[in-house]
């Protein structure tokens, strides 16, 4: 029975922890800015990304 209680607690605790810490969701704000700052350092100026930004496929990209 202890095994079942342990599994249930792991699933419940895991669900609670991942919900509480919002695991798996994209981070906006400073995390986003830091990540994209690094990305931009590695992208050559004049490339399509810099010139036009990320448009959808129907936007002519």
């Amino acid at each position, binding site marked *: *029975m202890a095994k*079942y*209680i342990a*599994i*249930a607690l792991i*699933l*419940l605790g*895991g*669900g*609670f922890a*991942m*919900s*509480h810490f*919002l*695991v798996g*969701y*994209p*981070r*906006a*704000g*400073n*995390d*986003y*800015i830091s990540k*994209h*700052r690094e990305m*931009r350092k590695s992208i050559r*100026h004049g490339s399509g*990304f*810099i*010139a*036009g*930004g*990320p*448009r*959808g*496929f*129907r*936007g*002519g990209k």
Partner: protein
Amino acid sequence: MGKGENSKLKCTGCGGDVVKTYRTVDEDEEAPIGRCLSCGKEYDQYTGEFYRYFADDFTQDVGNSMFKLGLKGILGGVEYEIIGRIRMQEEDEYEKSTWDEWLAVSSDGVQHYFVEEDGELNSYEEYVPESIDLESDTSSIIFEGKKINRDTAYSGRIVFFEGELTWKPEIGEAVTCYDFKKDGRNFTIEQTDDEVSVTMGVTVSYKDYIQAFGREDVRKSYENTMSKRRLYRTGSFIFTAGAMLSFILAIYSYASYETVKNVMVGKSVITSNEPVSENSQSSYFSQVVYGPFELSRKNGLYDVDIYIDEKVQRLNLSWQSFRFMLLKEDNFKKATDSQTGIAVLKNLFSEIDALKDPLESYTMAGDFWDEKGVDSEGTWHENDLRGSSSFVIDEPGKYYAYLELYSEKKREIDSVKYSLTAAGSVRYYLIAAVLMIVLIIVNITKARMYNELPFDVASK
């Protein structure tokens, strides 16, 4: 011992060889039948010959029983000895659906029937009714004043017998049975061409009978089986509680959803339907800034939903792509020196992707489309008028939203709207609940199926 033997598969009509074959009874089901190779006569489950030919199909597990001939046991202080047995097959079922009637005689000379079916055990004894009328009513029989509808009858066919029985049975012999309750007691009437027998019985616990008749190893296997089944049931209860708790937490989390108000105020149109051409494709370009509005939750989860408001303008067989950016007020004002002129904004957003430090705190892009066509099933009309995303914002405060739009045709800027919702994370509670539901099903199945015994025992 009465068993059909393959060497005797001869047609009762012409003496030709009978072989086993199948008859299609439903679109995808086939019922076994016997067919004479000479005259083509068929024998299905409603004929006695079928069971004489194919009795083996219903008797392969005759050894898997708690009882056997000659077995003795003491129940309620009375000693019983198993002296005979018949196995019946339900006539309406062409797949195996059997029950065993074990005849026992007690030390005081009374006959008992122990009936095993689907892991349940019933004990029957002969009963002499005060009155029974089987003939005067064509739709029912009358048993001690109680009407029993003939429609409730089912037929069994004898497929196996052994030991000392009170009559000489034949393989394939039909018995019409009525099972019913009267005054809280179970009765069975079994009717053949020659005789009618009435028995009264009770469902009994396998445990009592295994203790009375079973060998030590059978008793041990029974205890192990029941112990394991109890454990699996306990597991299913624990996971049921866990799944319910997960659902409650998911509902609680969902209850924290709150729409951010006034996100589309402070509209500044920078560009409206400006013709652009790129890679020989022409389109119309629009830019608009909304805000500021308040996002108040620190490290809060937000859902952004961007959609075409067809009340303003239908997309009408065209496309439109969008880019949505969330801009923190402080960064935005710093970048514009707190100026709000259209020229300043236009200049800023024309360079926004080239800025060394990203101005935006979050971005998402997508497309809306509306199409129709013709295929083999006729005309179709499909569209996608909505895009959504979730993100976690680390700093609460005031924000602006920037929308960049490309469209195939000129479009009203106001036809593209967005909403922001402060959300709670529900997905992981639901995943935990679903996993626990799977574990509940697994444990319930094991609680029913686990068996160390060579015969079926129901979980009672």
